[in-house]
């Protein structure tokens, strides 16, 4: 008997008792749904947690400071830098040439004067003003305007923002090369008494940014008007403004052209963000950078520890899903045993007209497999749907807290495991009933 005939006959056998088939499939589907939903949620949570640890950047990211390494802290995740040391193009090129370094993103930061509108009209039409007396750094002696803030603006290549530890909370990142767009951090929102949940409201506000230059007793500013296009949680460097590197380099150049009143660091780059090829390579890359002479920090040890804990959670959740699947396969075994009892005569007739034991065995195994695969397919789809719903609920909560949302992770291997695993477990569960059916004597055709 060909496999095609066996499958056709098994399909008819399944459809013959729709009630039992539906219940059996439902049991498998629910188990598969639980299995795939748990794993998907687990995987999503893992990605979210690791993303949080990496501040939205790559897991294998390393912050390089324009400072010498502190020999006592070289192995720590969050090492303090030693004495300042210039980080220039030559040093960056040397770092980029290290083995296991994937990318190097330079960062530039500089102090600027920022003047927001007074009052600031938010996107929803409400108005807010600076909390307190403008800014602590506002200094009338230096010719500052009322409501002027002295802030640090961090510049990065926006085309490579994906390599940086930056999470967009609202809006978007500035366009690469733009001199009129900036993003702000929750620290900026706090200047106006706003929370992270108010991030959307700050969008489209225009501010003036002035690069100061000292001319002896006089300070003059080179002003530019920029729009706040996004609110970000950025940990690439300290500063409440994030802008394209071109904007920051221009501002810094203007300030450096004056006298040394502002005491800007001589390093062309305030730091760099280096991405290693993998988490396992982070330690060696950090050592190499230390050897070159720069301080680094990376959450590698923390990430490795958290990954171990998350793996345990994933194993536990997988175990729960597998137990559910095992219970469902017992349901398949029970349904097939009942079918064998009911179909003794039919099995006898099949043998009487020429079926071999292995034909009957295959017939029942395929019936089990069909139930398992259908249940697994339905359950996996249901599970992924459940995971998506859970993701939406979690996103709602995270957004209400002003945190970056989660993107449900739907790994293909989980979907495939849900379907194929259910099918295989069903075939295993059908083994005993199928063997029992195959061993029934042909005489059953006459006796039953």
């Amino acid at each position, binding site marked *: 008997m060909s496999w095609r005939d066996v499958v056709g006959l098994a399909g008819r056998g399944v459809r013959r008792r729709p009630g039992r088939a539906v219940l059996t499939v439902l049991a498998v589907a629910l188990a598969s749904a639980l299995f795939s939903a748990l794993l998907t949620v687990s995987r999503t949570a893992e990605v979210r947690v690791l993303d949080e640890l990496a501040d939205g950047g790559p897991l294998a990211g390393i912050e390089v400071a324009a400072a010498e390494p502190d020999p006592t802290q070289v192995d720590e995740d969050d090492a303090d830098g030693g004495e300042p040391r210039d980080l220039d193009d030559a040093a960056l090129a040397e770092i980029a040439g290290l083995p296991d370094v994937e990318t190097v993103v330079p960062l530039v930061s500089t102090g600027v004067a920022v003047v927001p509108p007074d009052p600031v009209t938010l996107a929803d039409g409400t108005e807010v003003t600076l909390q307190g007396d403008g800014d602590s750094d506002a200094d009338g002696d230096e010719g500052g305007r009322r409501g002027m803030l002295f802030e640090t603006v961090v510049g990065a290549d926006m085309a490579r923002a994906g390599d940086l530890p930056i999470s967009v909370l609202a809006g978007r990142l500035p366009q690469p090369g733009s001199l009129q767009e900036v993003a702000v951090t929750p620290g900026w929102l706090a200047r106006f008494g706003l929370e992270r949940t108010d991030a959307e409201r700050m969008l489209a506000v225009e501010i003036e940014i002035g690069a100061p230059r000292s001319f002896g007793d006089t300070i003059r500013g080179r002003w530019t008007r920029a729009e706040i296009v996004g609110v970000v949680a950025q940990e690439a460097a300290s500063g409440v403004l994030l802008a394209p590197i071109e904007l920051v380099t221009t501002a810094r150049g203007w300030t450096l052209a004056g006298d040394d009143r502002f005491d800007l660091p001589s390093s062309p780059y305030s730091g760099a963000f280096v991405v290693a090829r993998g988490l396992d390579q982070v330690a060696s890359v950090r050592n190499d950078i230390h050897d070159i002479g720069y301080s680094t920090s990376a959450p590698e040890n923390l990430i490795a520890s958290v990954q171990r804990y998350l793996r345990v959670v994933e194993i536990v959740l997988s175990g729960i899903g597998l137990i559910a699947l095992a219970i469902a396969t017992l349901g398949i075994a029970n349904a097939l045993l009942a079918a064998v009892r009911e179909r003794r005569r039919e099995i006898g007739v099949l043998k009487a007209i*020429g079926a*071999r034991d292995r034909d009957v065995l295959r017939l029942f195994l395929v019936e089990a497999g069909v139930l398992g695969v259908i249940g697994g397919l339905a359950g996996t789809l249901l599970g992924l749907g459940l995971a998506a719903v859970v993701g939406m609920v979690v996103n709602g909560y995270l957004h209400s807290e002003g945190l970056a949302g989660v993107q449900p992770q739907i790994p293909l291997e989980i979907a495939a495991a849900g379907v194929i695993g259910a099918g295989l477990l069903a075939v295993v569960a059908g083994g005993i009933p199928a063997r029992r059916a195959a061993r029934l004597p*042909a005489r059953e055709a006459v006796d039953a």
Partner: protein
Amino acid sequence: MRWRTRADPPVPGSAGRGPGGGGSTGTTGWAASRVNGRRGGVAISVRGLTHRYRTPTGPLVVLDDVDLDVPATGYAAVTGPSGAGKSTLLSVLGGLEPLQEGVATVGGTDLCGLHGDDLAAFRRATVGFVFQHFGLLEPLTAAENVELAGALAGRRPGERRRRAAELLEGVGLADRADHRPLQLSGGERQRVAIARALANRPRLLLADEPTGNLDEGSALSVIEALERSREEHGCTLVVVTHNRGLAARAPQCVALDRGRRVS
């Protein structure tokens, strides 16, 4: 000895002696002896057949030293009261269960020593069964039930569809080919079962109380269908029946009582 279906390669040394002369073993003999779709019947020879069933109270002898001869293309009726061993005799002759004691040859094939797949191959290649309960698979249509026998013999779908149509037409059910068993009357179901029994061109047709569940009119049409099949297909026919009138139609009548042959 390993029995082979038509789809199997021939087994060396398994070629039979041809129709009428004791028959052949397996499909190689079938192919050689078939003429215009007729394969010829097989002769049956049984000597000292004894069969027991295990019961909680010990072995129960259901056939006791039975002798039987049916010539090739012969027609025999087996009668007797309930528990006489009629169905067991049929089961042994048809390879539904292994021979325990005695000698039984069907078409020159010694049934002694045939087990498992060999018995399945023997049933597939040589025997066609008709049961009192029809034995049709409910999810399948009449045509599909007939095709099933061909599928088990490894025949190609097109070939077995043609064969099923031809056989259903032969039993007057061409217009009921797409009906399921529950949509057919008892007599129609039994005629479908006869068509299925003939699907693989058996050389021995065994019918166990084929009219037991039928009214008189249907019973007559079914027994006539069996007799016509025997004539058209040239097979040997053995019918187990309680019905003396139907038994009297057979040229050879074998009576059993409590496992022993009484006439």
